[in-house]
């Protein structure tokens, strides 16, 4: 266990997950997004080459699962925001005797820092 | 108390006959009206009278509560023990026939012994109760009489 703070002494390059380093930067995000765009186009294209079959008429719409998924996502995001606006409270709303207001007891944990 | 001569004399006259009468009632219990209960009460009454005249302290000197308690216990033991003896002799609990060859004698003895126990218990318990209550009242001085 290293006693000092993380940023200064930990050399990220030496960590086991270094392969993915940079994926959580803005650039990494853009790369992932464009990769997904490419995959989506490919998958949509498949549908136009080999027609698909479903149980209901609606499934015969072009790229039904694609736009349905996106629509639902938008709807859920909006819905969740509304719910959040109504139901969100401080973390210690239920007082000091609630789990969300307390830390997990240390005896149940083994917090070890990764060696750089 | 010492100068209440009339009371002292009268009580001394009365107490012995009361005790004798109590014994009479006690020992004729098996064939005439009477028995341990009545005898015990009469017996205790004699002591109560003694205490009324001579004071509760005098009574507790004659009959210390500790002794009374033990005698009460022994009385119960005589009564209940008789039953256990008859069991040991092979009859039922309080089955007096086991006590003697002659069934009449057996019954008589059984009753006499049992009544003795009852009499003892009743007399001593009556006295214990009396002492318990009387000890709580204020003592009278001679000039209060």
């Amino acid at each position, binding site marked *: 266990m290293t006693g000092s703070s993380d940023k200064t002494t930990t050399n990220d390059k030496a960590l086991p997950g270094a392969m993915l380093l940079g994926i959580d930067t803005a650039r990494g995000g853009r790369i992932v997004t464009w990769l997904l765009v490419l995959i989506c186009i490919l998958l949509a294209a498949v549908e136009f080459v080999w027609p698909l079959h479903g149980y209901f008429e609606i499934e015969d719409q072009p790229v039904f699962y694609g736009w349905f998924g996106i629509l639902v996502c938008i709807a859920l995001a909006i819905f969740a925001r509304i719910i959040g606006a109504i139901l969100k409270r401080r973390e210690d709303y239920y007082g000091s*005797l609630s789990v969300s207001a307390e830390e997990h007891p240390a005896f149940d944990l083994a917090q070890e820092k990764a060696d750089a | 108390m010492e100068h209440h001569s009339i009371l002292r004399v009268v009580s001394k006259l009365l107490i012995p006959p009361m005790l004798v009468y109590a014994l009479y009632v006690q020992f004729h219990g098996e064939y005439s009206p009477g028995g341990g209960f009545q005898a015990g009460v009469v017996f205790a009454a004699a002591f109560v009278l003694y205490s009324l005249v001579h004071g509760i302290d005098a009574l507790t000197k004659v009959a210390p509560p500790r002794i009374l*308690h*033990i005698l*009460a*216990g*022994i*009385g*119960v*033991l005589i009564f*209940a*023990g008789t*039953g*256990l003896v008859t*069991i*040991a002799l*092979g*009859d*039922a*609990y*309080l*089955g*007096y*026939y086991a006590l003697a060859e002659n069934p009449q004698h057996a019954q008589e003895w059984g009753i006499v012994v049992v009544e003795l126990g009852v009499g003892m218990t009743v007399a001593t318990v009556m006295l214990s109760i009396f002492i318990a209550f009387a000890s709580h009242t204020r003592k009278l001085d001679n000039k209060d009489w």
Partner: protein
Amino acid sequence: MMALIEPHLPALQVVIPLVAAPFCMMLGRGGLAWIFASVVSLATFVISIALFAQTYDGTIISYHMGGWAPPIGIEYRVDILNAFVLLIVSGSAALVLPYARSSVAAEIPAERQALFYTAFLLCVAGLLGVTITGDAFNVFVFLEISSLATYALVASGAWANKRALTAAYNYLIMGTIGATFFVIGIGMLYSVTGTLNMADLAVRIADHGDSSTLRMGFVLILLGIGLKLAMFPLHLWLPNAYAYAPSAVTAFLAATATKVAVYVMLRFMFTVLGFDYEFQADTLRMVVLPLAIIAMFAASLVAIFQDDLKRMLAYSSVAQIGYILLGLSLLNETGITASIVHLFNHAVTKAALFMVAGCFIFSAGTSSISKLAGVGRDMPWTTAAFVAGGLSLIGLPLTVGFISKWYLVLATLELGWWPVALMIMASSLLAIIYVWRVVEVAYLQPAPAGVTRKEAPLSMLIPTWIFVGLSVWFGVNAMLTATAAGRAASALIGSSHILWKD
């Protein structure tokens, strides 16, 4: 030796504690008296186990006192029902006495302890005598022996709290009225039939026919016993008596005194009077049944608002007696089974709970619920015992309380009385509330600063947990108790005449 003693077991059952009592007094010292009393109670327990084993298959033992044959002599008559009750009484005594040592040492001055154990043994003897005897007048005599001893026991709480004296006095007045009613009632039956033997009474009353004397006797016996068993509006003596008596006494009385009175009620209502006449069933259903239901609610409600743990449990006892009376006033076999099985189940549960209260008094010095805040951390075993007992009081499955309520609900459903079944459930909810109050205070509230409380000594914890264990064991495996209660109920019904024919 065994062969010599065995035929005399019914007599010895009562005589041993009776003879032991004066011995105990003469021992004079607290410790010795305690050891002696414990050994004696253990012996009576062994005897009652033997009697229970002999009668479990339905055998009836009849013992003739002094060798005089029944209608004239006094008969001790043991069947499965009173063997079951004997077991409850002697078993409770055998378990409470080990517990009493520490508790009594803390609550009663040393020079009086021998007298305390004497009164305790007399009380045991009286209760056993009431249960075992087959003679109606003898019931009265033993009832008085046990009651007088009980008054003394309750009054011996005065060293801890002077109010025990008024409580004992109230109890004395009420108990005496009850006993008077009872003896007058028996007198009326005697004047009608000319016999005091219960079995003989049953036969002769059946031959005698209805009369106003009989009715009067019935009512007097009903109310006299009603007083002794704390039937709802006649229960007023009970809360104070239980609250101010020494802890061990409360635990013992709660387990036995009212139970024995219920036994007498069952015996007189079903065996002696035997339901030859409609007025009996009518009175039971129109007086006892509503009162039982009111008791279930009213007493539970009062319990909710009590601050003293012992008073709360006492009121809960009044409510539980309501269940017992409800069972018997349903007048069907399942109902009576429920009553009898609840005799045992409630005895076990309440003894455990009052013992817990005693542990609190011993270690925390109080039985006031509000002062027990956070006690669950300081006295985990004691508090856990309370939770287990409380669950049984509520009637949670896998506890004995559930078994009783199961039979009770079945009995009401057999009659098609849905509302009553619902009321039983609803009143259980009240039990949840008053049990929960204690749990909440004991576990969820922080302990007041500066208070130190040690766990109760093992000599108190072990008997407590034995009762708790019994309440779980017989809750999981109710075979023995339910079978015994069922057989007792069918024997009672078999001995009554008219009601069961239609």
